[in-house]
């Protein structure tokens, strides 16, 4: 029976956009607080709700992912959970020791060496000198800084500082752990170390993880809260649903069209599972379904041996797949007027995530190839899949096991 370690009920927080006004409100709020008055729930001039009416619980052994656009209120919520600022409405209950992977390396003085700074950061995190003496070798080994541990921190790269900070913070054994986007910095080795550490802690800890890396969220989290402009859009234990909703919020549909006057792109259609989608739609496709792509083009003049090339890009704009066999099937010497290219992928093998396709129309005349148009990020679509991971392609072949003897 897991116990509830974090309980948030109806919490709201307001901030002021204007600095001078904010300081004046601060002065007023200090006075009100000292005489014991409750903060007003009306928005004063230039104030806005950074967080409005959030409620959730996290039990020991659960990992809650907080996702949302920049400025949605995630870090503000973490600050309130950490006791740094007070909610304007509602209440928060935190049971047990609270640790935070938030400002790694807090307390460092850059003129001192890494070794000396271990004590500084450790003290801020609540370790006694005696405790740090006992863990010193472990921390130095974990950080993998080697001889550089005795170099002044001002000479460290930001990755090295984060490694040292994490090595110290990893010694914490809290009941609640708050993690705020520290995983964005750091190399692959560091990130994997972070995950192993979090796995180790997860059984006995309630974790809250703020991240923009959806593979990280899907790997670690048991629950997800999607925030948008301070409000909770969805609070679910179906992590892939939450992540899909996150992707849907980003309407980066601006594609880049470069073409010649000879041809005009009329429409692109994606057809899957009996649904016809156009580029303005929120296109959602299921893993394993078939995906048919139709491209309608108007040729204002003759086009010789036309073919289409399609490239698939992941959300980090890396291309990872392509279709280049059009000319094996389409053999027209010359065409004009309205033409429709059509192709079908029978089994969409993509991991969950958001993808885009880039389309190029080529013609070939007298053995010279010419690009007639190139439409970068022509269509965006999201793939729904229970499987999430680092790689865009996910195969699901059959397996057998032969036990011999």
């Amino acid at each position, binding site marked *: 029976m897991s116990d509830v370690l974090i309980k948030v009920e109806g919490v709201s927080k307001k*901030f*002021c956009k204007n600095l001078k006004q*904010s*300081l004046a*409100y*601060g*002065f007023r*709020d*200090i006075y009100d*607080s*000292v005489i*014991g*008055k*409750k*903060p007003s729930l009306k928005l004063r001039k230039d104030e806005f709700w950074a967080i409005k009416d959030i409620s959730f619980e996290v039990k020991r052994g659960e990992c809650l992912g907080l996702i949302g656009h920049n400025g949605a209120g995630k870090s503000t919520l973490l*600050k*309130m959970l*950490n*006791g*740094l*600022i*007070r*909610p*304007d*409405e*509602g*209440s*928060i*209950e*935190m*049971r*047990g*020791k*609270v640790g*935070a992977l*938030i*400002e790694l390396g*807090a*307390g460092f*003085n850059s*003129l*001192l060496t890494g070794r*000396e700074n271990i*004590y*500084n950061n450790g*003290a*801020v*995190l*609540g370790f*006694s*000198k005696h405790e740090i003496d006992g863990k010193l070798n472990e921390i130095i080994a974990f950080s993998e800084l080697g001889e550089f541990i005795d170099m*002044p921190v001002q000479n460290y790269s930001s990755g090295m500082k984060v490694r040292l900070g994490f090595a110290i913070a990893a010694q914490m054994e809290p*009941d609640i752990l708050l993690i705020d986007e520290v995983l964005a910095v750091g190399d692959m080795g560091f990130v994997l170390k972070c995950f192993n550490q979090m796995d180790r802690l997860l059984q006995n800890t309630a974790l809250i993880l703020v991240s923009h890396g959806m593979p990280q969220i899907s790997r670690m989290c048991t629950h997800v809260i999607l925030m948008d402009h301070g409000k909770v859009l969805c609070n679910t234990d179906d992590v892939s649903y939450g992540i899909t909703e996150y992707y849907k919020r980003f309407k980066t549909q601006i594609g880049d069209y470069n073409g010649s006057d000879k041809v005009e792109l009329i429409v692109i259609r994606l057809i899957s599972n009996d649904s016809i989608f156009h580029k303005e739609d929120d296109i959602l496709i299921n893993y394993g379904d078939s995906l048919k792509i139709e491209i309608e083009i108007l040729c204002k003049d003759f086009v010789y041996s036309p073919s289409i090339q399609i490239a698939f890009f992941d959300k980090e704009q890396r291309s990872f797949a392509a279709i280049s066999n059009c000319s094996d099937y389409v053999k027209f010497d010359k065409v004009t007027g309205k033409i429709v290219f059509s192709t079908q992928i029978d089994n969409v093998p993509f991991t969950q995530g958001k993808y885009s396709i880039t389309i190029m129309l080529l013609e070939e005349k007298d053995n010279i190839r010419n690009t007639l148009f190139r439409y970068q990020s022509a269509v965006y679509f999201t793939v729904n899949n229970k499987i999430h991971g680092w790689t865009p392609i996910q195969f699901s072949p059959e397996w057998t096991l032969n036990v011999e003897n």
Partner: protein
Amino acid sequence: MEIRHYSSNNNKTFSQILYEIMKGFIEGRELASRLFIRDLKASFRKSFLGFFWMFIPPFATAGIWIFLSSQKAVSIQKTPMEYNAFVFCGTIIWSLFAEGISKPIQRYQSVMGMMSKLNFPREAVILTSFYDIIYSFILKLLVLIPILWFLGYPPGFNFLFAIPAILGMLFVSISLGLLLCPIGLLYNDIGRALPMLLPFLMYLSPVIYPIQENTEFPVLKYLNPATPFIENARSFMGGYDFNMYSELVFWLIISLISFIIGLIVMKISLPIIVERSGG
């Protein structure tokens, strides 16, 4: 298991707040000494003159007044001890008072970034301010004693009696500094005004001139918290009479009360300050 409860209601009782403040001091004592040691080490690493910088301001002020007096440009009458020694003592003790007032704001400002990201006992910062000022006191004492000896006031048993007075003065100065913090951390006007006001306040204290027996200069005698402490300490070192014990006790009691008030106000207002000005 420790349970922390945060809400919009400020319904903590007075004794609950005091208990949390005490806990903050106890839990934060290692952090306090660590912060002090950290900054001390760092200040020596990148400095050639190192801790000599501590002595330059009081020596400069004392030097100017000794020079003016020796040139008879200014005539300060009837000092109860030899003028050079009188002035040196005064400026060094006053410099400790001035430092004590500025210390809490400076220390809190230096940890503002950390306070907006991590939770640690905020009372540790006040303890660190005390450590800073006591370190400064020890250094200045080490310099003051040989100088007084050279000027004809060898250290004796009576010097020891000066120490409680100075420690009391440090406590008074930190209490005052703490009271300035809530507003001083929101608006930087206070932090800017202090370096200008403090020299001015020095001239309102019996630092470079003595208290005349017959004048009733009210600010000097009754409204200035530093006066009884400076006079008490200096009177032991210089071997003259001191008769402001009632003012001494009065200011000590006032400081104790204002220290507690300052701690409570800081405890309540720090989250608001962090929210409005932190990173």
